[in-house]
């Protein structure tokens, strides 16, 4: 029972973080067709920016400022980089962002070093919120939950209740039509790209101290973000949300399961001492996203909620 409740809570938090990280990419990918390889790099930038800003001022200023800075970097990348590659097609764009990911990785290593930085949970939130089954539950996780839900609500409000949001929604499903309606498409692209990166940056700010802030965090998260977007489906934030939750819960639960293949398939004669039998479900957890990715692309190429095929 304890494990289930804790896994559930942690899974939801991980899922929310994943969604915050992926929602920007879903917007970018659906509207512009750019599968941004560097998206997780912006997540990393968010964490590092927050670390530096928090070092000079405090966490709360970093919480506001870091995502804004990341968003500006993103907008600049779109304006002076991506836009000129656009004419050469989606593969060229994909390659551009692929190179950009390399670049950001290296720059981060030069500025902040190769090892993890000591980016800490703010003292104000560094206390156990409540006790559950005799174990303490940190307040910061609850804070992550609140920020994520707040972001979710804000995103929903912007997309459904503002003019800009309606244009974006139209562009999600019919990217070509928006230009015909007389909107400044390059500017919309730049803003969406910037906003998407800012969301990834925000995920970095609140996720960086919850997980680890090191130069490998982009490489670790990058492919998983793709999985969320692809599994969720093109043009669907709801799909991305479901996929992120599903992934978050599945991975967290899998980590909590100690059973090995031998325990499960023992009745088939699989011995616990054999190599295959010794593999535990927990050790398979990192593979789950990629299994999902391959299966979804083969079985249901439009993803869970997508309105068109990739």
């Amino acid at each position: 029972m304890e494990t289930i409740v804790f896994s559930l809570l942690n899974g939801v938090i991980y899922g929310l973080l994943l969604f915050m990280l992926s929602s920007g990419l879903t917007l970018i990918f659906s509207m512009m067709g750019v599968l941004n390889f560097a998206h997780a790099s912006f997540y990393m930038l968010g964490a590092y920016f927050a670390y530096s800003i928090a070092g000079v001022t405090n966490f709360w200023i970093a919480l506001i400022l870091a995502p804004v800075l990341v968003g500006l970097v993103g907008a600049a990348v779109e304006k002076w980089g991506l836009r000129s590659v656009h004419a050469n097609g989606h593969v060229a764009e994909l390659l551009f962002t692929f190179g950009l990911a390399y670049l950001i990785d290296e720059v981060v290593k030069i500025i902040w070093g190769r090892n993890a930085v000591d980016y800490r949970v703010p003292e104000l939130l560094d206390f156990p919120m409540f006790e559950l089954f005799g174990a303490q539950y940190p307040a910061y996780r609850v804070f992550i939950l609140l920020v994520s839900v707040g972001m979710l609500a804000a995103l929903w409000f912007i997309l459904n209740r503002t003019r800009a949001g309606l244009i974006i929604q139209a562009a999600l499903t019919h990217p070509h039509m928006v230009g015909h309606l007389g909107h400044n498409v390059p500017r919309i692209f730049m803003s969406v790209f910037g906003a998407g990166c800012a969301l990834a940056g925000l995920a970095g700010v609140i996720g960086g101290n919850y997980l680890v802030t090191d130069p490998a965090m982009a490489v670790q998260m990058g492919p998983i973000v793709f999985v969320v977007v692809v599994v969720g489906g093109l043009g669907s934030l709801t799909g991305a949300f479901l996929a992120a939750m599903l992934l978050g819960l599945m991975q967290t639960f899998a980590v909590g399961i100690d059973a090995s293949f031998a325990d499960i398939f023992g009745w088939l004669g699989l011995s616990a001492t054999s190599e295959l039998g010794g593999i535990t479900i927990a050790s398979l957890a990192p593979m789950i996203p990629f299994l999902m990715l391959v299966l979804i692309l083969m079985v249901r190429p439009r993803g869970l909620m997508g309105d068109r095929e990739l």
Partner: protein
Amino acid sequence: MQSNSVQSYEHLAPSRAVKIRQRFVPFVVMAVVLLLIPFFDPSRTMYSLTAAMGINIVFALSYNMLLGRGGLLSFGHAVYFGLGGYAALHAMNAIDAGNSAFWSNYPVFMLPVVGFAIGALAGAVIGWPSCKRSGVPFAMISLGVAELVAAAGYMFGSIFGGEMGVTGDRMVGPQAFGLSMGPVEDVYWFIAFWTFVGTLGIYAFTRTPLGKMSEATRDNPERVQFVGYDPNRVRYLVFIFAGAFAGLAGGMSAVNYEIFTPESLSLVPSGLVLLMAYIGGIRYFTGPIMGAILLTYMQSMLSDYSEAWLLYLGLLFIAIVMYAPGGVAGMVFGLLEIFRHGGAREMLIRRVQQAVGVALAFTGLVILIEVAVRWSNGYGEVFEPFGLHLGIDTPLSWILILGFFGAGFVTLRLARNNEEGHA
């Protein structure tokens, strides 16, 4: 219209002279270069560098069968390189063990054949689901498969040797061509032979009906269906061959390094081979060769000299994607074209102007990066080119950086204005 029924259309094919110049001479040159290298008495370092280049040339060419010739962007090509390499290493150990008549009579020299076969097999198995899709979905599937295979690599220690990998000894079994495979010179002949065979094989593939239809499928998959071809089938077969030649390169690597680790299956080498092919130029057959030589050189030389070599690599890649999609080969052939067509003096001047501008700005960038890297290390080390002392707090550093940037920018502007003036 005429109705002379037995007319010959031989003249439509390229003339003998053209064929010899374009198809025969380059391979003769390659063979001669490969044969001559040992006569310059290279150092051990040079030998190991050429070996790495040879392996990467075949690997990058095999990758380009997918990206350049087939229009398939893969993020997991190292899977086939790695599986081929592992197979070759296990075969090497089987030769060593000498338990079976087949393996104890198998020369190490021929191990790339094992890599080729296993690469093809892996391509056939993994390609079956992957090649049902093309474009971005294909790229994503290749990424997922690469992650899965790499994860499996760490999981099954008996096959992949865990973190430590699998090692072997190449000086076992019967000798072929009197090569003991011990000294670097022997290994050189092995690498040279298979580099040549791999390159020739991949080139020959481009000349076959399947190779031609692969290009047609890349350009227009819809039309291909209406001349009787199934585009997925074409892609699948090309994928198998690309896997096979990657496995061949893996086999070369297995003999050269005598070790393979699960790392070799991962996204990192897959990304590197993508960079090699693209920087070299995916539209040209020779592009990946140039890219492989350049990147291998950078990797071994620059990584000794500067820790930031990956940063330079990223910059180079982005610059190519943005400004020269033809890659290095595109630039080389573009220049040759200018020289060939006389009266292009202005064009040439503009190119030189651009090159100078890029060089100036790049110098500024190099100073910035080198100064920053040393500052970042925090060992108190300082960048000292040509006896200058460039620290992070020396004004001279920043004057030079801004100066070079400014000069480069102005030169590029001038070149562009000239271009617009002429256009």
